């Protein structure tokens, strides 16, 4: 059934990392006693009014900027009206026609996913259903959220998860959201459709209650299958909410009865339009650290392979070190090798970029061998000494002096007459064997380049 094209769009709700709620001073916390972090405002008592949390606005702007959105200097809060026990005012304050940010994009596995909008809204309370009764915990009521909505640019369940993982990483690395799925700080609602016709989207369904990335992959895959099966058997898809069972891995259509709800959105009269000035937006922009995805692109341009660039860029510590050393000695590829092969295997400890750079330079200049360099690096981490000190103490200076090396080489030739004869007969691969023997005899201090040069000279003589 390869002829079906899958189209996915995703809505993500992420809890903003603020100390207090969106419209009142109640603390935001996880796991506190039920209904302990509540006040008249987040309980929606008669007569209360919302007062907007500035930090939440800042984080929403930051999210918009990191997703390359346009930030609107004026956005408008709206009321979304519906009755539910966990909605204390009978409406949710959200943004509808005029969200704070629109028109963004991020790269996922080389494909651009367009971000339709990012908007601010308040969280509802939490219903706890017991056998004979339902209880409501209002601690979550009024917690600040952002909703991030993509265009239908995702083509497979795997890409959906890749997008979610990148988004989660961005929100976490920028301290916008804790984005821990298990704490409901990061929730996603994908909508999905399949179609045979090029350029035409099928009827979409919306998948709810997904608590893990695994559930996203499985439910979407199951839903693709379900939709194709319906279409293949001559049926049609109805626009509906889809539920997913973690146990069976199956999706099914929820009753469509409540789907036609009319939220009667209108501008929230208790909050004037949210106006943010350009200076503040620029201030927030300048506070944003570089994103892993941006770093990766930059490292590839410097000549690193995509794989190496990805590994380094994903680690903020290694990225910083890489860039600092680069400023001192240049040569990005060589630095990346040191970081990937040696530094990362040491567990990315704290280290001075100057000393690291000096060590790489000593190897490059032939003062010490590569092996010696690795040893110096280890020692630098343990003793905090400079490479110069370590090299002296451990007597690691590389032997590049040709007379000394020639003497050692001749000794090796004498010890291995058989191999020497084969070399004389033109067996080139034995050059490596003799370099190795010389390295062994000098305890790794010989300059391998000089040794192989000397061997080649001998070879020519015969």
């Amino acid at each position, binding site marked *: 059934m390869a002829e079906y094209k899958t189209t996915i769009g995703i809505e993500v709700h992420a809890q903003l990392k603020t100390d207090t709620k969106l419209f009142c001073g109640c603390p935001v916390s996880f796991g506190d006693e039920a209904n302990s972090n509540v006040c*008249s405002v987040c*309980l*929606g*008592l*008669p*007569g*209360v*009014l*919302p*007062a*907007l949390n500035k930090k939440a606005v800042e984080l929403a702007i930051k999210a918009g900027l990191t997703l390359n959105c346009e930030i609107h200097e004026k956005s408008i809060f709206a*009321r979304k*009206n519906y*009755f*539910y*026990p966990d909605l*204390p*005012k*009978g*409406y949710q304050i959200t943004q509808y026609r005029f969200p704070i940010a629109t028109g963004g994009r991020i790269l996922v596995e080389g494909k651009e996913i367009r971000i339709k909008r990012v908007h601010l809204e308040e969280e509802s309370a939490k219903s706890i259903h017991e056998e004979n009764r*339902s209880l*409501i915990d209002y601690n979550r009521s009024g917690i600040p959220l952002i909703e991030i909505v993509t265009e239908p640019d995702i083509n497979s369940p795997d890409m959906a998860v890749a997008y979610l993982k990148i988004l989660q990483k961005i929100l976490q690395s920028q301290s916008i959201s804790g984005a821990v799925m298990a704490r409901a700080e990061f929730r996603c609602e994908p909508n999905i459709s399949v179609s045979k016709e090029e350029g035409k989207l099928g009827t979409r369904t919306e998948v709810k209650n997904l608590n893990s990335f695994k559930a996203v992959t499985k439910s979407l895959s199951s839903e693709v299958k379900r939709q194709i099966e319906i279409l293949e058997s001559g049926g049609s898809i109805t626009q509906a909410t889809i539920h997913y069972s973690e146990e069976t891995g199956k999706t099914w259509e929820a009753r469509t009865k409540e789907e036609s709800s*009319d939220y*009667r*959105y*209108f501008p929230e*009269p*208790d*909050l*004037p339009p949210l106006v943010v000035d350009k200076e503040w937006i620029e201030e927030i922009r300048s506070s944003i650290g570089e994103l892993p995805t941006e770093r990766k692109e930059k490292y590839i341009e410097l000549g690193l392979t995509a794989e190496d660039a990805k590994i380094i860029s994903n680690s903020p510590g290694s990225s910083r070190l890489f860039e600092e050393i680069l400023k001192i000695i240049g040569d990005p590829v060589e630095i990346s090798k040191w970081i990937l092969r040696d530094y990362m295997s040491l567990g990315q400890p704290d280290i001075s970029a100057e000393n690291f750079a000096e060590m790489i330079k000593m190897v490059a200049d032939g003062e010490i061998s590569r092996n010696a360099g690795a040893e110096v690096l280890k020692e630098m981490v343990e003793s905090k000494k400079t490479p110069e000190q370590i090299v002296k103490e451990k007597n690691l200076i590389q032997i590049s002096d040709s007379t000394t090396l020639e003497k050692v080489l001749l000794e090796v030739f004498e010890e291995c007459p058989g191999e020497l004869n084969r070399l004389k007969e033109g067996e080139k691969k034995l050059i490596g064997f003799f370099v190795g023997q010389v390295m062994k005899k000098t305890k790794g201090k010989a300059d391998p380049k000089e040794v192989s040069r000397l061997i080649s000279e001998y070879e020519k003589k015969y």
Partner: protein
Amino acid sequence: MKTILEYQEEFKKQRITPLNLLEDCLKNIDPSLNAYITVTEDLAKKGLGKNVEGKLKGIPIAIKDNINIKGIPTSCASNVLKGFISTFSATVIERIEKNGGIFIGKTNLDEFGMGSSTERSYYGPTKNPFDLTKVPGGSSGGSAAAVACGSAIISLGSDTGGSVRQPASYCGLVGLKPTYGRVSRYGLVAFGSSLDQIGIIGRNAEDVGVLLEVIAGYDPKDSTSSEKEIDDYSNLNTIPKDIKIGIPEEYFKQIDPEVHSSVIKIKKTLEKEGISFKSVSLPTTNYIIPTYQVISYAEASSNLARYDGVRYGLRKEGEDFHDTIRKSRDEGFLPEVKRRILIGSFVLSSEAIAEYYERADLIRRLITQEFNKVLKEVDCLLTPATPTPAFPIGERTDDPIRMHVPDRMTAGANLAGLPAVVAPAGMIGKLPIGYQLIGKPFDEKKLLSVVRLVEKIAPFKGFLKEVKDG
């Protein structure tokens, strides 16, 4: 009849004590008027016991029962809030307490402020102190009746479409609706949030100014409150001689001829004082009532959604959540509130929003522009406060269209967010009627100064039951 500042002098000279004044006020509470839902004698005495110094020291103030006072029931005259006790005080209440004012009671209103007669209260109608067969106006009819009968020196009401001014007019008092944002709405139970403003009903302009000075000003808890500095509203002695007042012709049509002539008399009196007048036109006046209805009903349908029986107030158990909410709301609200919630929900529904809510919002902007344009040519506008004096109890309860008629004079100021004050213009028979001044944003002081001038040159004495001074 003493002013608040005069009472302060009396207290200083110890000719009257605040307790004497409170006791006099308590004696003047007339149960046949049904002005109060809750009399808060203990709270008032406790307030006196704190002995707080300030502009309002020892002044008994009545509060409309849709403004929260901590520890006291807030009913909004609705069964849906049965048993609800406020957990916090409105910002205006805190400010009054800091200035020594005391609270004598919570006054009756049309349920949630929805009405023009104070007949649509779960606690029964309030009557007009001038004629018990007439309505006191509404929705702040309790606050007006309480002051008119001498049981409170001054009172707070709320004004969404005229709910402070119209009852002030029917009860021969001064009623001020400040500029939208001048007084914090925090703690006022919302009806139409973009129109609601806490207002003052008092016996004279100066008293109203004294209380305004206390309650006005920015409040971080109300994002729609203004950061603009407040004026010395109680200092009304500078006579506003060089001002020009507009007479909008549309406001003088379809009104009682005696109301017409009374307001024209006010105009002539002011002309003699050297104030100039200019005829102006506000052609959008005919759209005020429908625009006001659509916007206020829409906002009310959302504002009243929280009364679902889940957390507080009346709860009628049903089969499931939706059934419980249906039963609680069905028993909780009176028919008029239900009517407005239904219409408000309809005008916001996806099939009707463009035709109704959005169109009303657009017309509201036109009305505002028109006011602002005219107010560039003149300092303020003089109009009748109401088309007629108080109407008989029961006359309009089954006729929502007629009930809304007085709003034509007053709701424009709410739609445009402008300050407006109503003050006595005379009597028709035994019923008082009022004139209205509508001003530029934040021009409360100027409006009150004009009222003060009228009071000086044409004092309307004999309106009120004298408060016995002990």
